[in-house]
């Protein structure tokens, strides 16, 4: 069977986001940074390979299946913010009229919380313009690569019984209970959750982070690996943190929806990566050329 991919949800703006108002920027020329913008501390992670639990929901033979673990190669150095975007940084974007005020719980030098995927996109766009660099949300794979040992992935059921779907539901519920993670809603100062082996701070703490990856529902072939069909829904994005989950792009508080069975994120925030890809460098050059001509 041929793989088919269907795109849903025109609501979601795909994150290709070529910044539109980079007047005066040209290739090789460093834009004088807006003095009001704090340059984010970043961590550079050298290229590497790892086995990654794929995001989304997987079906095999019409039954829920474990997410495939596939080898992933990160081909270029990944430059990622060491800390999550801070509330006072985000406030500068709000002051500039480019971001909507966050539903943050506190003021001060804590990470911004109460932000949706759309808010994160708006910030990335503003921050890119203000710094003259290309910043974007990490993909699910990039986040997992940067998170290293802090990556947990989805809370999958311990048991899958094709004759009794309730076993899966009950065992996921039990797994979440056994994790015994108490709600921890108060944002804490940057660095409170320490750094991982790659030098990236506050991963899997009490702030879940938006990624640019879309939710997928995938039907696997008989080998449990080959994709028979897949539906991509970009109205829902992958959120990473203590565990991996999926949220509609306009949600700012992951806790709403108390009916739902499942472990809700304490807070929604984000961090960005600096995009040094060839495509982005070419786009920058192209924009420079286009503006100059």
């Amino acid at each position, binding site marked *: 069977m041929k793989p088919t991919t*269907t795109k849903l949800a025109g609501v979601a703006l795909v994150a290709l986001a070529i910044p539109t108002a980079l007047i005066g920027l040209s290739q090789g020329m460093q834009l004088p940074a807006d003095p009001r913008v704090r340059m984010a501390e970043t961590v550079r992670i050298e290229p590497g390979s790892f086995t990654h639990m794929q995001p989304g929901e997987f079906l095999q033979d*019409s039954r829920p299946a474990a997410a495939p673990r596939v080898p992933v190669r990160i081909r270029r150095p990944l430059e990622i913010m060491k800390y999550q975007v801070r509330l006072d940084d985000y406030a500068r974007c709000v002051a500039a009229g480019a971001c909507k005020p966050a539903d943050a719980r506190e003021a001060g030098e804590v990470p911004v919380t109460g932000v949706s995927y759309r808010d994160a996109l708006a910030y990335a766009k503003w921050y890119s313009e203000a710094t003259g660099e290309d910043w974007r949300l990490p993909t699910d794979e990039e986040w997992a690569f940067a998170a290293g040992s802090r990556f947990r992935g989805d809370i999958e059921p311990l048991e899958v019984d094709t004759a009794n779907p*309730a076993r899966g539901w009950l065992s996921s519920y039990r797994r979440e209970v056994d994790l015994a993670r108490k709600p921890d*809603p108060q944002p804490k100062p940057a660095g409170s959750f320490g750094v991982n082996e790659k030098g990236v701070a506050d991963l899997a703490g009490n702030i879940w982070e938006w990624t640019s990856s879309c939710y997928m529902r995938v039907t696997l072939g008989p080998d449990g690996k080959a994709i028979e069909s897949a539906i991509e829904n970009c109205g829902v994005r992958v959120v990473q943190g203590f565990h991996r989950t999926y949220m509609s792009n306009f949600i700012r508080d992951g806790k709403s929806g*108390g009916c739902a069975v499942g472990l809700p994120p304490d807070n929604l925030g984000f961090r960005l990566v600096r995009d040094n890809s060839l495509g982005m460098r070419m786009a920058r050059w192209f924009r420079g050329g286009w503006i100059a001509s």
Partner: protein
Amino acid sequence: MLTRREALIGAAWAAAAAAAIPATPVMAEVKADVGALPRQKVSLVAPPFVHDHEQVATGGPKIVEFTMKIEEKPVVIDDEGTALRGMTFNGSIPGPMMVVHEGDYLELTLVNPETNEMPHNIDFHAATGALGGGALTHINPGEQVTLRFKATRSGTFVYHCAPEGMIPWHVVSGMSGTVMVLPRGGLKNDKGEPVRYDRIYYVGENEFYIPRDEAGNFKTYESLGESYDDTLAVMRGLVPTHVVFNGKVGALTGENAMKAKVGETVLIVHSQANRDTRPHLIGGHGDYVWEEGKFANPPAKDLETWFVRGGSAAAALYTFLQPGVYAYVNHNLIEAAELGATAHFTVEGEWNDDLMTQVDAPRPIATN
């Protein structure tokens, strides 16, 4: 000049004095032979559990003795750490369930420790006379009282604190609970055939009215007296900030989710002392529901959602037919999902494909 505490106690003393006049004749009417009845002392357990009891009474009427201590204390009511200046019967919200049989006497000793700030009493909807016992049970900090009433009607009944001048405040601060008076022969279905339960869960629903500061954050107070004016202002708006089961958002979920097995029959008693509610078991039903909670009436059958009048308790009997994780909610879903009125049941057992099956799993829309 009076401090707030003195003023509130003063109001209660006035009420107690007014109640003292009918008190004497009521006491005089107690029949002499009651003293000869067997006595049973029962230790209360915190909800959603219920103390051990017989479903069908063995032997004749007796006096069932309970003791409850009133505890005033801050109570955390959500995951954000919001603290209610709570007032509780026996330390829990709701107060524990007391079970007796029709014809028994319920004898309660109510203790108001000296460390408390407020006078309290108890109004039993199951009792007859003296404001449900409220007029005979006013006690100040440092006092205790014992009340006995005859359980003349079977059913599930609310009890609550009812001190003159500040009844709703005590109730929405946590002071309510449930009495269940079982028919001596146990529960009967609509055809009069006996029905039994393997488990009983007692879900007390409370709504709270927590004041906010200028920034919109929930306020905390050093004492009950200091919280009174602001809380009353929110109460008068009739818009609760929290609607919860068992005293706290999420109190009956996760490791505290209620448990059952396929084939087990569960009696769910749902009480709300102040405000209407409408319980619903998502993916299940009420096989037999005493919506008003009174067992002399035949139960309604096969309900999807049942209505609990504010100031009453309902009883619903259900035999679980399918395993899984069930949500038990107040089916005003805004109150369930946004304000907290959600509990979970985890039910183990074999899946019944005949009752439900996913014929075709989600896949891309078929094109021909």
